[in-house]
């Protein structure tokens, strides 16, 4: 089982790239430890800015740095970054079009039993609703690294969400199919299309294996690029299947499920079921316990697919 969380993968890429690109700057809000950025801060103090517990300041300072040619990566818990500094993200990053990468760490329900103050189950909806803000939820450490490398190639704002805990690998080291803003098709089938993002990709892939045992063939799509959503991939997958399931670590409204449903409804109407967290504070527990409780695991996804395929 992989022991490297996606956040650490981000730090490793940035520590490598900063050797040749002195414009890379990492900013934290008393969050360097939880962002896995301590090694970066220690080794590259001149490229690191601590702002203290001040998330609004974190984002605005990043925008100012970007405006003067720097490539800031602002890492702070997703719950605070996406809500406390929402307006700074909207005005100073998106509207002013500054080259800021916002890294929401410990995203979704990573913080488990700490409760709703520490959960970010609204960040996809909130960030996606901002014009000129891109939203990415990579599925594993290898894809995370690819994404960071690609984000260094452009000069536009982006919001990236990663979880706190290491997640099982979806891809293999040195063999990561990745095209910027194009979803990755993990397997293809004709009964059901499962479209997932972030930490829900791996259980979706495992669900496809369970379904195969029951002679149900599934397409699984890693939609790490929630915005801009890869519409072509959605349409193609939906056209080839009887029904669509979306899976995400997010509230039921405004997330991946809502966006996929919009596209399917407009382009190739089919039944779409959104598997999400509830519209309520989630039950107390570790993230695994919470996922299991709400059926956001391989078995839960497979069961939902069986039920759905039976009824179409």
């Amino acid at each position, binding site marked *: 089982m992989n022991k490297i969380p996606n956040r650490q993968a981000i730090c490793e890429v940035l520590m490598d790239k900063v050797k040749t690109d002195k414009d890379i700057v990492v900013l934290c809000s008393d969050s360097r430890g939880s962002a896995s950025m301590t090694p970066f801060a220690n080794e590259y103090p*001149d490229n690191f800015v601590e702002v203290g517990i001040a998330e609004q300041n974190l984002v*605005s*300072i990043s925008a*100012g740095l970007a405006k003067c040619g720097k490539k800031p990566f602002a890492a702070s818990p997703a719950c605070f970054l996406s809500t406390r500094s929402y307006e700074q993200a909207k005005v100073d990053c998106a509207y002013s*079009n500054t080259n800021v990468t916002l890294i929401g760490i410990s995203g979704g329900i990573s913080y488990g039993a700490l409760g709703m103050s520490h959960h970010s189950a609204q960040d996809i909806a909130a960030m996606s609703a901002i014009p000129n803000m891109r939203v990415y939820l990579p599925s594993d450490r290898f894809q995370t690294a690819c994404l960071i490398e690609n984000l260094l190639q452009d000069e536009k704002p982006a919001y990236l969400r990663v979880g706190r805990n290491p997640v099982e690998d979806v891809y293999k080291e040195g063999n990561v199919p990745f095209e910027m803003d194009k979803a990755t098709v993990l397997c293809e089938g004709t009964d059901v299309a499962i479209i997932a993002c972030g930490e829900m990709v791996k259980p979706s892939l495992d669900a496809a294996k369970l379904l195969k045992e029951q002679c149900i063939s599934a397409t699984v799509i890693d939609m790490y690029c929630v915005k801009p959503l890869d519409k072509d991939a959605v349409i193609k997958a939906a056209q080839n299947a009887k029904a669509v399931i979306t899976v995400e670590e997010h509230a039921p409204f405004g997330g991946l499920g809502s966006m996929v449903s919009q596209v399917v409804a407009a382009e190739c109407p089919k039944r779409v079921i959104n598997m999400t967290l509830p519209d309520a504070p989630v039950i107390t527990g570790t993230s695994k316990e919470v996922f299991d409780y709400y059926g956001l695991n391989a078995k839960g996804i497979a069961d939902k697919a069986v039920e759905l395929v039976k009824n179409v």
Partner: protein
Amino acid sequence: MDNLTAFSYDLRKKVVEMIIEGKGGHIGGDMSVIDILITLYFKQMNISPENMDDPNRDRFVLSKGHSVEAYYAVLAAKGFFSMEDVIANFSKFGSKYIGHPNNKLPGIEMNSGSLGHGLPVCIGMALAGKMDTRDYRVYTVMGDGELAEGSVWEGAMAAGHYKLDNLCAVIDRNRLQISGSTEDVMHHDSQIERWQSFGWHVIDVKNGNSIDELDAAFNEAKATKGQPSLVLANTVKGCGSKVMENVASWHHHVPTEEEAKQIFADFEERREACI
């Protein structure tokens, strides 16, 4: 431009024309801030249409973005766009001259409009200057009512912490905000002690509508090393005409024909008095 004070009344007139033509605008704060903008753009900052791509240019962010009409007038006077164009099109359907600063227009670095953003953004700009050992300076202007925003104090703290002596923040201390006196809405004084306690060098400008006094203050800020500077510009909201001066309701008010006549006459009288 020898007599900038006289010139300030010419620009004030343009601002009023813009507001009448666009049927809206934040006239009171335009009148209090315009001398600050003129001093910065015509005496202090190395910003011009020719050097907007120069990484060594000074940086400016109008944090009190609602005073955009004064900003447009000064930018037009600097040659960034045409004064006639902005007066004719301000706030009209499809216009690029929006009611708050927008960086699609030449000369404008950052979009603003929501109060409390300018200072933290300028801290990023100032930090970048330090990192790259460039000697440009960074300026922002905030309203005094704006100071109630918590984000301003996050910025005040960080600028002091990082000893950003390439940063100069200006407060347009006109003692009014939308609902009335700043002291009634949310007690302010003493701003001098507040900013000093955050590690800033504070320069108290008695007449914040005097270009000479402002110029001296900015020179002092430039000479101050090891800490950021705050220019506390004690201004008059609506400065330039007795019709508007120190009247809260002129925060945003479009002058009637009658009022405009009086305002223009007042501008002319004061203009004459200073030449």
